[in-house]
């Protein structure tokens, strides 16, 4: 089967968010880049499907030329080839992004399955997957926590309070997945090295006029990092256990 996974290059944040002076973007001077955890799981899911059924995983990213780095990361996880829809670096709105992906998909032999992360890690518009499905006239199921394919049908599971909703959709189809659908593998060194020579094509579409306008970004105020000393030495253990229980990890 032929699977396409769409991913987006986003800043790898961890500390306090800092905006550029014009409030239009995150200041990325000190930041690395990655793809969203949902997308990492999407790539892992696609690679597992192809390992099971045979075929090919293609990864597409729309972004600046540097986004090739994120495509290569996914190639190291096991994807086979990449398509970079290169932009001039500015943010494209969901409609423009979806249109460019649709154009790229149409230029390709048909994909049986197109996988998205449920939403991007930065702008989080929740739109591109559905727009692409709509434009291609394919069924779409979002928010998946389970996915399998058999006899040309995708079995899609969503988590709902008290259980799971299951949808069966005929291929070709579009899905978006959530973090937790699987535990993505770390790339091995040989896989990293192989990824360097896997093919990545670049297409450079015209940027359509934006229909969704970003005014500015605001970093919400918050408590920030807070440290509380729970105790010292062995005497601190009960308090630590309590915290772990509250967090649901013990």
């Amino acid at each position, binding site marked *: 089967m032929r699977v396409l996974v769409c991913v987006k290059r986003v800043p790898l944040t961890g500390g306090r968010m800092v905006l550029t002076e014009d409030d239009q973007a995150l200041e990325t001077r000190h930041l690395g880049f990655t793809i969203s955890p949902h997308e990492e799981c999407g790539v892992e899911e696609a690679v597992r499907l192809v390992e099971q059924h045979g075929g090919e995983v293609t990864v597409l990213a729309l972004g600046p030329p540097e986004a090739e780095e994120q495509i290569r990361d996914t190639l190291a996880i096991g994807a086979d080839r990449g398509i970079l829809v290169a932009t001039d670096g500015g943010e494209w709105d969901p409609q423009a992004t979806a249109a460019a992906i649709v154009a790229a998909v149409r230029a390709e032999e048909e994909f049986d399955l197109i996988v998205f992360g449920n939403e991007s890690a930065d702008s989080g518009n929740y739109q591109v997957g559905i727009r692409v499905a709509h434009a291609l006239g394919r069924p779409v199921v979002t928010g998946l926590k389970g996915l399998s394919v058999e006899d040309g049908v995708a079995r899609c599971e969503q988590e709902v309070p008290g259980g799971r909703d299951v949808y069966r959709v005929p291929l070709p189809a579009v899905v978006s997945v959530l973090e937790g659908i699987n535990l993505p593998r*770390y790339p091995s*060194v040989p896989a990293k090295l192989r990824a360097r020579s896997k093919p990545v094509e670049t297409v450079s579409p015209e940027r359509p006029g934006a229909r969704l306008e970003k005014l500015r970004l605001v970093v919400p105020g918050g408590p920030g990092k807070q440290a509380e000393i729970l105790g010292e030495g062995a005497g601190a253990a009960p308090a630590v256990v309590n915290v772990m229980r509250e967090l649901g990890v013990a």
Partner: protein
Amino acid sequence: MNDPSGATSSLPPAARAVVIGAGIVGNSLVHHLAELGWTDLVLLDKGPLPNPGGSTGHASNFIFPVDHSREMTALTADSSRQYEDLGVRIECGGIEVARTEERMEELRRRMSSAASWGVDDVAIVTPAEIKELVPYIDESVIIGGFHTKSVSVVDSLRAGTLMRERAQEAGALTVAANTEVLGIDVEHGRVRRVRTTRGDVETEIVVIACGVWSPRLARMAGASIPLTPAVHQMIDIGPVPRFAGAKSAIEFPIVRDMDTNMYERQDGSGLEVGSYAHRPILHDPDEIPSVEEAALSPTEFPFTQDDFAEQMEHALELMPEIVGDESVGIKYAINGLLSLTPDGMPVLGETPEAGGLWAASAVWVKEGPGVGRALAQWMVEGEPEIELQSSDVARFHDCQKSVAHVKARASEHFNKTYGIVHPGEQWESDRPARLSPFYHQARDLGAVFYETAGWERPHWYESNAGLVEEYGVEGREAEWDSRWWSPVINAEHLAMRDRAAIFDLTAFCVFDVVGPGALDSVQRVAMRQMDVKHGKVVYTPVLAPRGGFRSDLTIMRLSDDHFRVVTGGAHGMADLKWFRDHATDAQVVDLTSSWCTLGLWGPRARDILAGTTSDDVSHEGFPFATFRTIEMGPLRVMASRISYVGDLGWELYVPIEEGARLWETVWEAGEPHGVLPAGIGVYGTTGRLEKCYRAFGFELDSEYDVVEAGMAWGKVKDEDFVGREAHVRHREQEPAALMCTLTVDDHTSSSGVKRYPLGGEPIQTRDGEPLVDARGRRSFVTSAGAGPSVGKHLLMSYLPAEHAREGNELAVLYMGERYPVTVAVAGSTPVFDPGNERVKAAGAVPA
């Protein structure tokens, strides 16, 4: 105040000393200051504890004890002991592997350094032996290795915490984390207070121990700590099946893949792969993100994987079982920041710009605790036990402090971290920086320039190449021995001894001590009597408080209250600070860039000089160890009759702008006498070695005293001077060692190639036993070089008293082989011209 985490501490209004930076150095320093009795200490960090986010927090934490630098090896050895005492050290062993024969030769040279500095648990090992120790290595890609059993991994964060807590428990220390320094106030040249986000602290001593941020902090006080943050890449892969049952953090030896500039070490169930092979990636201290903004920590930058691609292939070659395992994933990858300095050594000591402001920067985990202890001794007792001259912050000349220079040199030496660096190796970047007025004449004569203190100095002249045949000078067969060397040096030497040679000595540091307190000031610093007649020039040791050497230099007395100090360029800035620190009621004025110096020596020197001047330059009219102004045509020249090459002659000083004319004048007058230009190869090595003249930084340092150096001639002056008490004591006791000059008896290696030791090698018995003196110091070659006039290769070394006798047969270990040597001189009697007839020649010298 006693909150150990320091998160909520309030700051005291005043402190004995404020240490900025709670990494391994700052923590170690406060511990040792408290041990030495200091109280009211404050330790600040802008980050949280125990890991404030500096380089200590992401260090790979391993320690290889052997370095070619004695200073670094000593600091590392002390650090290992301290980590062991703190219970945070795991000895795992380590192997530096070679992929090339050139590297094997380097590893054999490492054996020599290990023996010289007293690290004995080392051995050259075969690929099969390495495979035994590191079963997951592919031994087919290597040809051997250097195994050190005492290589260890330490927990530097835990060590820092323990040391900090000990100082707190002693009631000597207030710790304040999450506290940023806003300013360091300097008044009348001394620090007065530190301003922080939690208020001000009045103090007379501030220590900057904040690694990659240090230049920023130094700038707050108008001082300079020349270093640059630079990236060191590392990845952690795992889980490794072979390490699944690991009981401790490390059970297999660390492997340094020297030829690829990489290391691989077990880290619990993972394998850490680090690299110094990638392009130099330098950052600015001001560009480092804050603790809040950093995704990981401020000094863990995003991994730039393109820079690591080749390294992964190298790791895969060496350790295919682990690195090639498809189930072993890359779990962690960072560009970690560390500090690089222009010369690769730490930056320690009181800054020359601001009194009471100390640097404790560019220190790695392997030497951190040792640096902490040494600095504490320096601050409390006035002198560290371990000689720190190569790390002294005062060593830098102005031209070496610029960001551009620091970055150029850091870029150049980053990839040499595991490199094979020849002892004579020259820097390539940021040259030429300082040009003497003789530069163009020298260049036209084919000078091969070496750099010292930023100055371009002729090391030899290709225009003298014809002399090699004339004097029948032999070349050196081994490429290593002949690298950064030329037989022309020996030929220039012989021609100087026959005729006369001129030397560009403009790299000298020159400073004047002037004012009513000038005499007392120089008396306090100089070991020898400085209350001499005007016009006398005195060569004198400068002692450290414990009676070792702080420097050696010459001082001229120009008038009652005016002295001129002339010292070597390399150490001149530290000397300048030392004189300024000890000057009372006198100014110390740096005139280095005002005066140039041309040396003229050789049996024809007097004839040449006489041809340029109508002044009396006869022996009676111009005795040895005097100076005065003479007129050479229109030039007024300060001529000083001394010699560091052991021949009749003068140092000639004129203002720099008149230098070119001075050269021409001497050159023209010298041509009929066969004058030639000669380089520092003669001045610094062959000429002085034949005369057994010692050099600071080689024979002379704080770890040996004047008696041991064989320089305790004359009586001790009555006036007090730094180190006097210790010096008097040294004269009364038997020296543990004595400086000797040895000759190499047979140069032929087992493969029939003549080899020439270059310095740093151990002196042993003919059976290969190390020589250790009563104070536990090993004998090693302090300087090595040709003695062309005596036809021998000469080695200088401190030998234990019982071995310091002429004719004693010993050996030198060079590149893994022992060569027979014999003690030619015990003490300071020159091997060439032992009666010093040439230097003090009254008339013509028999050539």
